[in-house]
């Protein structure tokens, strides 16, 4: 008796202590808001801080800072700050001559030969940046011994594909040549209007032949083995912990660079991340979903060039029917899903190309093609329409609507959150379309494997653009594309996309892609459900971080901090 009495008493104390802690957590919020609202929208900027230091978090240890081997966005974030390609997008996301290593360029009459005139620039060790560094880097990318996964990025170039696959063995036959130290001549297989915009990808950054020879496999694996020709250089790299960039004084546009030092931590835990922000150890941070509510008054957001979609297996005996695919998407009230599960901060998608991707005449692609290309049950479609579609689909397939029950299973990620979304979808499909569906969970690699074997019916998938043009999304679902996991085939769609690949006139190209997108959505081989959104909080003293829809989010070249 006595034992349990003591223990109960102590447990009660413990409980009170915990409650008092959580009580504190709630009390603190208003206090914090007061601090932040001291200078609400203070437009007259304060003094530039003496100490130009920016502290941010990188989502993980960058897997690879070798530009030709790197394929992930984490590494890309560092690479965009430490190296510079032929072009660099300016603050508004435009590609203009002279914004990168090329001062200007000429394009031959037939649109296949590009001559880039490089500026005088130096690597951080004082060695000049030459056209040879680019030629070397690009051929290194294609060299089968390098075994890069990103060779396809360069396949527009003459003999690039042939060299990387071994049918051409002499690298001199590849259409990249440094005619002198300052001139790079690139020959394409066919005119390609998006070639220039692809060059902002880190795959096309220059590499140092002398250093690759000297360091071998260890090139770019440690701070002192990582050369730089961009606004910043890597000065410290404590693996799995911290990476420090400092201003590169040898950079050609060093005058424009105001930050002296950028410190990246590599935290993955959400509580730690927000704790670091709260205690002023981080200047801005992407807000994890469970913290959205707590920070709702401070949240800022921007669109990333990504679209998330339900991937359908168009070769499946039931999902080959267009009406069935449409009915499934229409049955899901996507906006309601995000209002309940994501504080309404994520944009539902009703088209394939995400907002922010350029069109022409200063308008975005979406503004030209229209924001909404179809409706779901939340935006105007009715339950009767959806049920009608299912019945039509069933009769076209020669079965009854009841026969479709249990034939479709939603394959999603192995996290609790994926399951939560999956269950909501399942319920909505059942309520609004009268279809019983299943849910399967698997790890990322297992899902990819099942996609390539065609062993799935419906799944969650997404695509992040590689360059600033709608083509980076459009060519995905060409009949012969290796990324066409939907197994979609439509000659009309293919021909519009091919047209857009060959025409130079921006208006004509975009119009062709608008037409292609219309067919694509009409067929709905995949069903877009949301656009990429980055939600973050940032200290008011941080200025001029460039956040563009593409992977080069938060460019720091022009950023600075005010006295605080």
């Amino acid at each position, binding site marked *: 008796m*006595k*034992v349990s009495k*003591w*223990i109960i008493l*102590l*447990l009660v104390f*413990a409980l009170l202590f*915990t409650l008092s*802690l959580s009580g*504190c*957590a709630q009390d603190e919020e208003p206090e914090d808001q007061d601090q932040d609202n001291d200078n609400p929208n203070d437009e007259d900027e304060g003094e530039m801080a003496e100490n130009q230091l920016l502290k941010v978090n990188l989502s993980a240890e960058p*897997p*690879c800072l*070798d530009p030709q*081997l790197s*394929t992930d966005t984490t590494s890309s974030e560092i690479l965009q700050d430490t190296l510079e390609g032929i072009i660099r997008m300016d603050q508004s996301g435009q590609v203009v001559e002279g914004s990168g290593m090329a001062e200007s360029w000429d394009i031959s009459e037939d649109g296949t030969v590009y001559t880039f005139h490089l500026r005088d620039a130096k690597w951080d060790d004082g060695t000049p940046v030459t056209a040879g560094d680019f030629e070397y880097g690009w051929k290194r990318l294609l060299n*089968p*011994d*390098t*075994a*890069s*996964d*990103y*060779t*396809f990025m360069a396949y527009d170039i003459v003999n690039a594909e042939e060299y*990387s*696959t*071994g049918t051409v063995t002499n690298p001199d036959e590849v259409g990249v040549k440094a005619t002198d130290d300052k001139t790079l001549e690139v020959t394409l297989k066919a005119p390609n209007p998006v070639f220039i915009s692809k060059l902002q990808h880190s795959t096309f950054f220059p590499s140092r032949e002398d250093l690759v020879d000297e360091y071998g*496999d260890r*090139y770019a*694996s440690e701070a002192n083995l990582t050369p730089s020709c961009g606004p910043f250089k890597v000065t410290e790299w*404590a*693996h*799995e*912990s*911290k990476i420090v960039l400092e201003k590169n004084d040898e950079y050609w546009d060093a005058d424009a660079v105001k930050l002296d030092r950028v410190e990246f*931590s*590599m*935290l*993955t*835990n959400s*509580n*730690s991340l927000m*704790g*670091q922000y*709260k*205690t002023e*150890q981080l200047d801005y941070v992407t807000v994890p979903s469970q913290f959205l509510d707590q920070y709702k008054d401070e949240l800022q957001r921007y669109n990333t060039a990504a679209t998330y979609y339900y991937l359908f297996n168009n070769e499946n005996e039931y999902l080959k029917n267009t009406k069935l695919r449409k009915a499934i998407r229409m049955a899901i009230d996507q906006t309601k899903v995000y209002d309940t599960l994501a504080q309404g901060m994520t944009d539902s998608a009703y088209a394939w190309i995400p907002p922010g991707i350029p069109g022409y005449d200063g308008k975005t692609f979406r503004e030209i093609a229209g924001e909404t290309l179809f409706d779901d049950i939340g935006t105007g479609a009715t339950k009767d329409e959806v049920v009608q579609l299912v019945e039509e689909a069933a009769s076209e397939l020669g079965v009854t609507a009841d026969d479709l029950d249990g034939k479709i299973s939603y394959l999603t990620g192995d996290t609790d959150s994926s399951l939560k979304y999956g269950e909501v979808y399942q319920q909505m499909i059942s309520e609004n379309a009268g279809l019983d569906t299943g849910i399967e969970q698997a*790890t*990322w*690699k*297992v899902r*990819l*494997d*099942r996609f*390539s074997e065609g062993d799935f019916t419906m799944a969650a998938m997404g695509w992040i653009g590689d360059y600033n043009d709608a083509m980076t999304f459009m060519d995905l679902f060409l009949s012969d*594309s*290796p*990324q066409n*996991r939907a197994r979609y085939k439509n000659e009309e769609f293919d021909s519009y996309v091919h047209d857009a690949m060959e025409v130079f006139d921006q208006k004509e190209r975009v119009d062709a892609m608008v037409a292609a997108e219309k067919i694509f959505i009409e067929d709905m081989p995949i069903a877009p459900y949301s656009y990429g959104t980055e939600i973050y909080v940032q200290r008011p003293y941080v200025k001029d971080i460039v956040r563009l829809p593409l992977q080069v989010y938060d460019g720091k070249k022009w950023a600075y901090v005010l006295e605080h």
Partner: protein
Amino acid sequence: MGKYVLKRFGLMIVTLWVVATITFFLMHALPGDPLTTDKGLTPEARANLEEKYGLNKPLISQYGIYMNNLLHGDLGISLRYKTRTVNSMLMNGLPASAKVGFLGSIIGISIGIVMGIIAALNNKKFLDYFVIFIVVLGVSVPGFVFASVYQYFFGVKLRVLPVAGWEGIKYMILPIASLATFFIATFARFTKTSMLEIMGSDYIETAKSKGLSNTTVIFKHVLRNASIPIITFLGPSLATSVVGSFVIESIFGVPGIGQFFVTSVQQYDYTMILGTTLFTSALVIVGYFISDMLYGVADPRIRIDK
């Protein structure tokens, strides 16, 4: 003695070989592979990669190559971190993991043993209940909860210690405290139970009736005998904590090797999976060996120097 050590060493090699072999084949039996990417690799690019990592060879010859490299102490290149070797990644992470793991377990185990002794000596008194309370809390509440509470209270609320990061001694306190909490609870429980059992035995009664002082009885007779079960846990506990904990490392941003256990499997980083598995296995085997040696110190009957 020398012969015994040699025999144990031989057994360790065999065990490691078995572990490596089982892990190797289980890992390759998983659906999917390290080269699966969402970018839809062209068959040619895939072939180039397979060639580079030797994945195009028959499984049995991949196994042979791996074992041969292993004999030379080479764990291979990470398939995820393309410019780094598994050896360098483990060596890079070991100091951080070992500092937190070693200090956390030593401090936790010491406090735990002392608390266990206090509880046993004050059986069914206030101090005993206090220890029972700590034990119940420490054993039933998962480690990450303690870590998060410490982080919030000392880091975010009081701001006396850093929330996360790895820059110096200050940054080690919370991870060490979190790890120690677990050991305090576990070892207090073992020590108390084990001591109570010994204290009730006949030879302790004899010692007392011989007129030995209470201190002598406790330190010379009870503690020595009670230490056997504690020692059993001591070696392996030390060994596993030295390779780090995924939870503590990710919460406090400790750049150790604990995280590789989880991430390598998620990413199908074959070489890293084998590297971490073998490394831990070796340490655990060494841990048991240390325990076996310590038995002899505590109890001459199990000494093996014949």
